[in-house]
């Protein structure tokens, strides 16, 4: 097995997880803020929609995504009309799928972090002259720092482990949609157990290292606070 046989799917998986996590943080910051602080009647509906990917089988998400992202589907047509790329069997399509698949794993920790910010901290900022957006960035974000880190790690890790959705909408194009989990699956299908072992072990070790790093940073943060 050559190095590129490991590296290409690994790099793709890491890139997918990183892009997805960054986009999810940007999407979920306002969404979770609203969920945490709004008393709107729409809130339970939005909360249920956000939580759906936890419950649904990846094949269900993948199936609907396939319909939406296909060239005749609404998102596929939109992308084509805007001169964008094809969305099925492509990296951009995988990113969209991953965002939906990992949404609750980022939105929920953020929502918890934002809900635990005491109202008087935000009120204090308001009386000291901070406008709403200023309060969000200067008070809410720093106070929710640990929740943001948790959300980022969960989103990243959950995207790393994604399989069913990728299988449905990505196919297996090397360097484009052939992620680690797909590569392992195909090697097993072809009875290439040696290659599957190496790829699986790589995933196991890198996932462990990632989580270990996060918990070490978390611990150091806690220690410096005491």
């Amino acid at each position: 097995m050559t190095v590129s046989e490991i590296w290409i799917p690994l790099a793709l998986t890491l890139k997918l997880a990183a892009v997805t996590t960054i986009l999810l943080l940007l999407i979920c910051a306002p969404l979770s803020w609203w969920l945490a602080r709004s008393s709107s009647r729409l809130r339970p509906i939005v909360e249920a929609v956000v939580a759906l990917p936890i419950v649904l089988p990846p094949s269900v998400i993948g199936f609907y995504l396939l319909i939406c992202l296909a060239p005749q589907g609404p998102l596929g047509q939109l992308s084509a009309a805007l001169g964008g790329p094809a969305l099925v069997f492509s990296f951009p399509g995988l990113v969209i799928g991953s965002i939906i698949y990992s949404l609750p794993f980022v939105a929920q920790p953020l929502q918890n972090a934002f809900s635990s910010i005491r109202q008087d901290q935000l009120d204090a900022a308001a009386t000291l002259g901070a406008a709403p957006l200023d309060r969000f960035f200067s008070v809410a974000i720093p106070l929710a720092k640990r929740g943001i880190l948790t959300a980022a790690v969960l989103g990243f890790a959950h995207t790393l482990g994604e399989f069913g959705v990728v299988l449905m909408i990505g196919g297996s194009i090397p360097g484009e949609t052939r992620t680690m989990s797909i590569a392992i699956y195909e090697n097993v299908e072809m009875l290439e157990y040696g290659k599957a072992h190496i790829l699986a072990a790589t995933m196991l070790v890198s996932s462990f290292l990632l989580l270990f790093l996060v918990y070490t940073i978390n611990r150091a943060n806690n220690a410096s606070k005491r």
Partner: protein
Amino acid sequence: MKLDFNLQLKKGAFSLHAEANIPAESVTAIIGPSGAGKSTLLRCLAGLEPTVHGHIHAGEEHWLENKRSLSPHFRRIGFVFQHAALFEHLSVSQNLNYARKRALDSDRFTLEEIAQATRIEHLLSRSPENLSGGERQRVAIARAIASNPQLLLLDEPLSAVDEASRFQLSIELDRAFHAFKIPALYVTHNLAEAARLSNHAIRMVDGRITEAGPTSQILAPSSLSLDELNSPFSIVTIHSRRDLPGEGLVEIASAIGPLTIPASALPQDLPDRLLIRARDIGLSLSRIDQSSFLNQIPATVKTLQSQSASQTLVTLSCQEGTLHALVTHRSAKHLQLTPGSPVHALIKSVTLVDQDSTPTP
């Protein structure tokens, strides 16, 4: 800055309907039982209750007109919360800088002056979580002042502070009010604190303002409820002081005439009001020369009011001031006290804070 408001707010079963005119340059105490809406009134004035309507005119500015409300960050108020609400992710000096960076007016005081007046210079590099309750409140007060407010709103700033630091902190608060000359509204349970720190008072009951006026009038025993009357006191304005360092005493000129008191009872530069508890005043028909009482104030009986099964509250006028004395019915009868009787008020001690009437919140 003159403050004039008429506010209506419904919050569940509670409704607030508060209307008042607060004179410029005053420190106003808001007193009343728990649940009267004192804190809610303060939050409405700060713009932190979005559903309030009515009007708030602050000087020339309209903070609220029907439902058009000026956002809190434009009102230039300093709000001191009951539990300080310091930013836990910032150090003490960063907390002050947070306020200063966003201040709208030109700086009236430097951060150094503010830190010095509130005695937090040694805390500047600390994190809020390592501060005691009293220190947190001092930082909160400093932070509020650092934002160059045109009005300070304080929501029971001393209630989360332990008993021992409360008195010291109240002295510093008094000092800050004087040093920075910022008009303030101050919610408190503690009548003695209200009496010493404020010159104007508002009484609230069930979401309504039932009384407003000079503190000495609102807190006069005749206008207090039975609960509040447990330990009546008089508020005496101080005009000037002269220290007698050799004896550890200080001579003061006050509204009720000259008084000589231990210097330890009266910190330098403060306060401009003294409290004298009614039970610390004895009455005599003539001056008693052979006695240990340093302060024997000539006075005239104004009213007599039965206070309990055994005691009478005697209200006296002395020069331009008023004193309240608590004596037994038997003594009142023995001395044949009636309105107009000339007496001498024998003052046993003076205090800055009525420790005994401090309610447990």
